[in-house]
């Protein structure tokens, strides 16, 4: 609720469509430090619309850091400079008067730019469709307390399940690898007793689709963990590797 404003030069990637050439466009803004980063973009857009110019296309939805829709690379960092938050939770008080701020879309072969800062991340859905579930039909179920699960295991599974599917791990990785995303789901389900029947199939099928979609492989730089808005640990990637190696060694499925 301060009246002081900070002045910034914001350089935003503008690209009319997937196949057109993009470039950075400069915007001078004067914004309240209490504004969120996306509200700052809203203000730029409102001004552009007033001038009958096309607003910057960017995605966001819940603006509470849980839906995973928003995702911008700000000064080279997915979701900006503050750890463990999504772009929508970044506030302008983290910038200084006179700063230049570069805003780019997530970049990966598997994440095509659709327009300006919007990228297509449905590859992540395809990976989940390949096996990121427990095959149980509605109704064919035992009582919820029929199978006790240790609090520690449940808590570890929850740590992994907290993934919001934003794709920042892919954007941060120098190889545009989706390993952290895949490992979070594989870990959650490999840890829980409900996930055991499909344990080997799941990891094999999910990794296969991940590879087909053109994501890179893991170089263990751990940039993904550093930029993950939910702080998902790279220990999950280790677990994914382990699950994958064991699945291939043990499984009789020679087609995988």
């Amino acid at each position, binding site marked *: 609720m301060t009246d002081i404003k900070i002045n910034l030069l914001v350089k935003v*990637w503008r690209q009319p469509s997937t196949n057109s050439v993009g470039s950075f466009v400069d915007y001078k803004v004067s914004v309240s430090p209490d504004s969120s980063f996306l509200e700052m973009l809203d203000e730029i857009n409102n001004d552009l619309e007033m001038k009958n110019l096309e607003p910057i296309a960017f995605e966001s939805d819940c603006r509470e850091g849980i839906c995973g829709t928003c995702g911008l690379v700000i000064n*080279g*960092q997915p979701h900006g400079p503050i750890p463990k938050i999504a772009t929508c939770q970044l506030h302008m008080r983290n910038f200084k008067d006179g700063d230049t701020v570069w805003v*780019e879309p997530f*970049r990966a072969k598997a994440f095509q730019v659709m327009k300006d800062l919007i990228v297509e991340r449905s590859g992540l859905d395809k990976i989940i469709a390949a096996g990121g579930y427990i095959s149980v039909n509605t109704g064919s179920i035992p009582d919820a307390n029929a199978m006790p699960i240790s609090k520690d295991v449940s808590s570890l599974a929850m740590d992994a399940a907290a993934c919001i599917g934003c794709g920042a791990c892919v954007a941060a990785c*120098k190889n545009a*690898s989706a390993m952290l995303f895949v490992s979070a789901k594989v870990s959650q389900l490999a840890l829980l007793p409900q996930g055991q029947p499909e344990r080997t199939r799941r990891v094999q099928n999910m990794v296969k689709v991940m590879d087909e979609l053109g994501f890179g492989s*893991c170089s263990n*730089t751990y940039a993904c963990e550093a930029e993950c808005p939910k702080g998902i640990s790279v220990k999950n990637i280790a677990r994914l*590797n382990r699950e994958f190696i064991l699945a291939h060694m043990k499984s009789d499925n020679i087609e995988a």
Partner: protein
Amino acid sequence: MNWLFRSLNSSIGKKVIMAITGISLILFLLVHLANNLTLFAGPTTFNTVVKSLDSIKPFVRVIEVILALIFIFHIFNGVRLWYENKIARPTPYAVNGSSKNSSLLSRTMIQTGSIIFIFLVIHLSTFWSAFNFSDLHQTHTYYEFTADMFSNVYYAIFYIIAMITLGFHLNHGFQSAFQTFGWNNKKYFPLITTLGFLYSVLMAVAFSSIPIYFLLIGGN
């Protein structure tokens, strides 16, 4: 065996190859270092050790072939991964923020690896070929040859730089291999990382100590 080929060709499979060959090379370096350190025990010891290897030449040759295969796999796979990973991000970022989320050493494995590769070529073409295939040893002892080589300041400095680069490569590579095998847990991983750091420092310092030693004593 198609399934094996497919498994090893997957993104994780290729990493597993890097890790297995990497760990093998880490073990080889220990043996190699032990050998080299006998230089400090003086000409007689060193010459005896090298000669004794001569006496089991066929065995050494087999080991060398295996070692060569390991190197080739490691290098080929490394370059392949680097190339494929480049393709996974066709458009680079205008601002590279990677220094804020990852360590320099983890991001430069291909660069440090390339320097080590250049070193390897030079190393093989000088020491290894001289020890194995030239008639140099008729005029020099192995020890004298080594001392001669390192009395060249430029050559010695090149070696030292290469060994420091090797240290950098190993520092990331060591713990990275364990992560790839899936051996990362709360209790033991900090130990592995520390061990990797100590190992890489040991390799860099101990291998460098030889050119430094000969540089200081001036080839005598």
